[in-house]
């Protein structure tokens, strides 16, 4: 009985101490760094994310403090319930960045910058492309690649709609084998809005004879506008693809060839037998990343700048080797000027081989 009392006394003395120790570490306040979920709080969060994470503020010469001075007072005119008004105001502010990689995502809308491709020739018509003159309706499909022989079976043609569409090395191999008798190949990435950088590197590797550095990339290392890491080389490694096409290849592009497609076109400029034909690409040289606002909206922005082999920005697009625009007259006749030029170029290159 006496022993039992000793136990009880000991416990009574020690338990409060133990219970006091348990919440000792509860010093974490998850909201201490968080802006409040109010119109001003969300504005502050958005402005700060762009200020610290967007990679082209200085390159584009954007006065981001000035943008804040213009837009922040307007936030106070928006009531807490007017989420559409707030979204539209944020979208207007983001439009000053003029970047197709900048989008604000909410459950009810997605903002996007305007003008970066609307003010350029379309240079692409799917109805003409899929007419019997070119791809027709009986084209072959290998993964995300659509292919056919065109121009009386003299030229191979591969259409790639999106770098988000998967393909394998076997898909490439079968497409190339189908075009094996053709002296040249057209690779059409017009209106290809991008996708995976890995697919871009894999596809480009088919047209290189050896491992080649085609550009560089950096990433933000701090909150300053110019806090970047060292440039990391971006290489096209021929080991990625077992099959080669070391004959003329004409890459078709237009202003809507964007993001990963922009990188692909940049890489193909350094392929030994490749020529770029069409219009200037859309750019999108900054690999996008996303961040969140306190109200749950998602902001996507260019975060990782990419450069060409000469260490110049590719954000504003790649100029083609041959700038060709589609004319209304040709389109009325069902002709695609860019494909027609590419076919002629292949014929010319076949007669007078030319490499870079």
């Amino acid at each position, binding site marked *: 009985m006496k022993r039992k009392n000793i136990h009880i006394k000991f416990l009574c003395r020690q338990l409060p101490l*133990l219970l006091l120790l348990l919440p000792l570490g509860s010093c974490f306040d*998850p909201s201490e760094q968080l802006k409040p979920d109010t119109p001003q709080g969300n504005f502050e969060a958005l402005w700060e994310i762009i200020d610290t994470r967007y990679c082209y503020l200085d390159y584009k010469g954007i006065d981001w403090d000035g943008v804040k001075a213009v837009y922040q007072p307007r936030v106070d005119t928006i009531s807490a319930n007017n989420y559409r008004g707030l979204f539209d105001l944020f979208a207007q502010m983001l439009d000053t960045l003029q970047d197709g990689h900048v989008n604000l995502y909410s459950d009810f809308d997605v903002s996007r910058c305007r003008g970066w491709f609307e003010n350029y020739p379309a240079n692409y018509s799917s109805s003409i492309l899929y007419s019997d003159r070119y791809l027709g309706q009986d084209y072959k499909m290998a993964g995300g690649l659509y292919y056919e022989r065109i121009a009386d079976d003299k030229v191979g043609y591969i259409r790639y709609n999106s770098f988000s569409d998967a393909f394998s090395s076997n898909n490439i191999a079968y497409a190339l084998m189908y075009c094996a008798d053709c002296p040249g190949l057209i690779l059409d990435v017009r209106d290809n809005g991008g996708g995976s950088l890995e697919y871009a590197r894999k596809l480009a590797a088919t047209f290189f004879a050896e491992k080649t550095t085609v550009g560089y990339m950096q990433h933000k290392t701090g909150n300053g506008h110019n806090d970047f890491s060292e440039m990391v080389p971006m290489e096209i490694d021929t080991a990625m693809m077992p099959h080669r096409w070391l004959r003329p290849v004409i890459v078709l592009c237009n202003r809507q060839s964007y993001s990963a497609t922009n990188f692909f076109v940049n890489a193909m400029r350094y392929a030994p037998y490749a020529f770029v034909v069409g219009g200037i690409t859309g750019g999108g040289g900054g*690999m996008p990343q996303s961040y*969140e606002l306190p109200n*749950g909206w998602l902001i996507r922005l260019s975060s990782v700048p990419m450069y060409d082999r000469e260490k110049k920005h590719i954000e504003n697009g790649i100029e083609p080797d041959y700038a060709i625009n589609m004319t209304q007259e040709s389109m009325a006749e069902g002709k695609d000027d860019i494909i027609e030029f590419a076919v002629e170029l292949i014929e010319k290159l076949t007669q007078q081989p030319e490499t870079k």
Partner: protein
Amino acid sequence: MKKNRLILSVCLFAAFCPLRAETPRVLATENDLAVKFGGMWMSDEYLSALPYSGLSLHLQNEWWSYFKPERTDFSYVDRLEITGALLYNPAYSNRITAFGVNGSWGAYYNYRPVGGLTILGGMLVEIDWLGKYMSRSVNKPYSMDFATNLHLSGGVSYDIKRPKTAYRIRYMIRTPFAGCMFVPEMGGSYYEMLFSLKNTVHASFFTNKAGLRHELTFDMRFKTTTWRLGIEHEYLQYHANNLRFSREQVSLVAGCIFNTYTFGGRRKPDNIQTVW
């Protein structure tokens, strides 16, 4: 000559007889198998500036034993924990799915000032990995906590023995002291990290990594089984590359405890040295 041999034989027999009579004790390993369920709060500035919170489930096993059967003042523990968690941002518009494995090994000095009371002090070496996947993140959907840590650890346990049963109350606490951790650069993508891990591996010390993990458990021994109930709290915060990371969790602990040991022959030995 014969006489000398006889004396020598008697002496050797006398010397080895006590050793033969005392068979060595069998050392048991205490297995603490537990399921932990509770809330988790997480902040990962690489993925998002927002704090995430949700539910977590852990499976944990600890193996406690002494280094030697005759030295009950030094014990060691092996620990393996598997964690799964689903966490949401405050607006419930995005989710982080986390899965992790944590393994550690530690050694403790056991000080017993009065009957039933044991004070433990020691160190733990730990490998901690927690992979995080954010479904809606563009180009950086993955992040991970990956670190090796040396922890300072201690505890108090108190045993209450009754004729037909026994109880144990134990409080264990540990804090990371030094180690090595992986932290991505704020704008770096894992695409780049495939080619270069530059500036992603950092030394950690209590100046840039602070944490506390403590648990209070109550063990009840019945006829053939021992059951555990408890509560555990963990807080961890670290920073590098201009990024802050933190996670906190509170879990209810339920488990069972059993001893395992190996022995030769068919009869169960009667001199087993258990931790509890």
